């Protein structure tokens, strides 16, 4: 069965500092990778996704993640964080068969709470 490990449960950081949230998944033939964000008292929202093509994907608010197949990782980075980035971040994986057909269901990591201090 697929598993996802988020290596840090909590990441405190000061405003304008860079941040990296780490995510590793167990190997599979094909995977689709996602980062979701959950702001306080809100539902899960998609931050960015990797389906195919360029291994570096970006979000509209400055986050980026790089798919590294050899290391089975999909780490999330931002060069300069804001107070408003304080939230819980979830890495998720959807597996596919050798032909690339997705099975649909997401397997989530346990989440990383990012706290940005002024």
């Amino acid at each position: 069965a697929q598993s996802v490990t988020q290596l840090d449960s909590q990441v405190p950081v000061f405003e304008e500092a860079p941040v990296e949230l780490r995510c590793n998944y167990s190997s599979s033939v094909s995977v689709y990778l996602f980062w979701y964000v959950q702001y306080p008292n809100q539902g899960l929202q998609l931050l960015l996704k990797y389906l195919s093509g360029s291994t570096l994907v970006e979000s509209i608010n400055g986050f980026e993640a790089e798919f590294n197949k050899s290391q089975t990782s999909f780490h999330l980075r931002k060069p300069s964080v804001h107070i408003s980035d304080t939230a819980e971040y979830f890495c998720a994986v959807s597996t596919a068969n050798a032909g690339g057909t997705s099975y649909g269901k997401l397997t989530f990591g346990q989440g990383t709470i990012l706290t940005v201090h002024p």
Partner: protein
Amino acid sequence: EAGVAQSPRYKIIEKRQSVAFWCNPISGHATLYWYQQILGQGPKLLIQFQNNGVVDDSQLPKDRFSAERLKGVDSTLKIQPAKLEDSAVYLCASTLRSGRVYNEQFFGPGTRLTVL
């Protein structure tokens, strides 16, 4: 476009009681999911529907949990009888499928269940 709707938002019950949650997915989304999110953990899939058929219910505790999507739109998830360890947020999500790939899942606000 309206998002995924869920009700109730909060529910408190005593152990051994029954409870039901309702979900209305985004219009046109044929695929619907129920997830359980226990405090401090990531969401865990309970059941996946494609229209009104079950695709995956391998992690649904079928001795006490049941779910249905009779007309391929709304869905209900029921717990009977509830246990203390069922305290969690129950999330509903929906998505479109484009060819071989499922698009992003859109999540509802969730129902927070507390079992006393």
